[in-house]
């Protein structure tokens, strides 16, 4: 009986070729699911940014602040779809070239022939396609990175930027600026990777650093909120209307970061070593998850001590700590990550105070310090602590020289567009809300209502440089009158008044 079944069973068994086809299909679907779920988790970053910034705003600006985060999705998604993804696919050599290396009618790096042609919005790979399960979910993961760059900037500008100006700027940052630097230095075929071994595995510089410096360029034109600085140039503090919401938002951002980290890896499920970083070099999911967790621990510790126990800076320190170790998260020893993240949080607290009190730039949530400064600090640290590790398909050793080359490329790439486009909007009088609207609160002008109708209005409080909490209304009106009804000057109290 059994002997008669064996030949029948063997006849039904798949051939090695059929088995390979089934394994490949299974592996592709595993990959597709993996990136899909990273996208789901990364949504929490945007939930978190919305809560964080909403809580940090005054009651009168709650909805206008949250709406920036919501409409980031409305504008960055189509601009990234129509333009941004193509930039990532086609600008790895620097700028597209037409010649022997060109693939499918488009320029493309030799390492990934044809990828460029797959990133056009009308390409077969951007829709339902049985040959390619991955391009669409890769696109989505990068889209979520793009939203993140916009959200990083949005917090810095709250309570006086026009919603529409922010949307234009965030589209420029999310769909042009950051993705160009990602093509150059955050891809296996990027010229910074291939020629200089630039290493920024989980995007310290390419996402956080670039978004932070873009925001700095915008802040210089936007100017501080009315009443932020005294006549002597001392910084006052505004009280956010809901610190609980801010802290919860930060915790949600941290949760979403795990999805962000995971989405920065490639899986090769049927080929050793199974996991690759974005440059095609080996690492593991466990290793980077370890570093991010230790990075939070070190960041909270550094933030707590550097700020002498300030709740906002303790949590922001966690973010700063992780950003500081992200660039080398694929190769750092956890103990090294712990130490470096402590230092990153200390750097963030120091930089935040310096930017606010010395440079007199009103960054409402410390985004320039936490993301901009610590982003590039993280890239710099790789040059010190991970020099010599091979990066990318060409196995170019990472080095301090390569890291500095990346920093020198990214700083102007980030800062200049932020400054230039916000300057144009300022000249068109489209950057900042009218000062009268800023005093009354943006929500009444934008939406015609207060969003806590069930709660009695209490006088708004402002903290003077000496620590006294006072009713903000006379202070704000005085500042308004001092500027003759115009918005306060740009960076620095002594700067020329805005016209």
């Amino acid at each position, binding site marked *: 009986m059994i002997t008669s079944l064996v030949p029948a069973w063997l006849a039904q068994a798949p051939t090695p070729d059929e088995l390979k086809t089934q394994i490949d299909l299974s592996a592709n679907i595993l990959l597709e699911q993996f990136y899909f779920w990273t996208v789901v988790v990364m949504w929490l970053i945007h939930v978190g940014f919305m809560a964080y910034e909403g809580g940090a705003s005054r009651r009168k600006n709650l909805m206008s602040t949250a709406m920036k985060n919501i409409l980031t999705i409305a504008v960055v998604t189509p601009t990234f779809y129509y333009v941004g993804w193509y930039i990532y696919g086609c600008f790895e050599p620097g700028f597209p070239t037409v010649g022997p290396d060109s693939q499918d009618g488009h320029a493309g790096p030799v390492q990934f022939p044809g990828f460029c042609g797959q990133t056009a919005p009308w390409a077969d790979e951007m829709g339902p396609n049985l040959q390619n399960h991955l391009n669409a979910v890769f696109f989505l993961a990068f889209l979520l990175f793009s939203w993140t760059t916009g959200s990083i900037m949005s917090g810095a500008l709250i309570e006086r930027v026009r919603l529409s100006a922010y949307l234009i700027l965030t589209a420029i940052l999310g769909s042009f600026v950051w993705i160009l630097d990602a093509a150059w230095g955050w891809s296996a075929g990027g010229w910074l990777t291939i020629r200089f071994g630039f290493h920024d595995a989980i995007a310290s510089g390419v996402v956080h650093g670039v978004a932070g410096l873009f925001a700095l360029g915008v802040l210089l034109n936007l100017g501080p909120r009315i009443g932020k600085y005294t006549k002597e140039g001392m910084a006052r503090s505004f009280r956010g209307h809901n610190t609980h919401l801010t802290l919860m938002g930060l915790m949600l951002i941290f949760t979403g970061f795990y999805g962000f980290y995971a989405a920065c890896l490639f899986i090769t499920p049927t080929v050793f070593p199974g996991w690759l970083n974005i440059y095609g070099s080996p690492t593991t999911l466990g290793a980077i998850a370890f570093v991010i967790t230790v990075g939070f621990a070190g960041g909270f510790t550094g933030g707590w001590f550097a700020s002498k126990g300030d709740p906002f800076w303790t949590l922001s320190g966690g973010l700063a700590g992780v950003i500081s170790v992200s660039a080398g998260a694929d190769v750092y020893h956890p103990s090294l990550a712990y130490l470096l993240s402590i230092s990153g949080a200390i750097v963030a607290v120091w930089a935040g105070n310096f930017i606010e009190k010395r440079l007199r730039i009103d960054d409402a949530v410390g985004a320039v310090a936490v993301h901009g400064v610590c982003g590039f600090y993280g890239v710099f640290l790789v040059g010190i602590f991970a020099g010599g590790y091979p990066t990318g398909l060409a196995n170019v050793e990472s080095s301090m020289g390569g890291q500095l080359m990346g920093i020198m490329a990214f700083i102007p790439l980030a800062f200049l567009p932020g400054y230039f486009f916000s300057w144009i909007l300022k000249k068109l009088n489209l950057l900042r809300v009218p000062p009268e609207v800023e005093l009354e609160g943006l929500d009444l002008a934008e939406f015609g209502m207060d969003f806590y109708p069930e709660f009695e209005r209490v006088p708004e409080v402002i903290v003077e440089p000496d620590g006294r909490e006072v009713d903000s209304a*006379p202070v704000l009106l005085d500042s308004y009158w001092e500027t003759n009804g115009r918005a306060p000057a740009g960076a620095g109290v002594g700067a020329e008044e805005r016209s």
Partner: protein
Amino acid sequence: MFDAFPYDEWGEDIAGFWTFGPGSSTGTYILTGIGVAVMLIAFVWFVRLENGKLLRQQAALRASGALDRPRGAAVVVETTTTIITDTER
């Protein structure tokens, strides 16, 4: 409805089976062009809509005099909150 898909005849080499497809066809070019145009119009509309709201509110606030520098003795200024200010400052 799903019988319309010839699964038996299909293999992994099927690509771009979408509406107005396949990719790089006249239909997808036209749809992309329309999408880009709508996206650009949306940006213009974001600016115009907000600009109108802000300027109207600014004009209303100026007309109310609520934010004018007070003359004379202590006055009560009505804004979103009640502000009591002293002109001696």
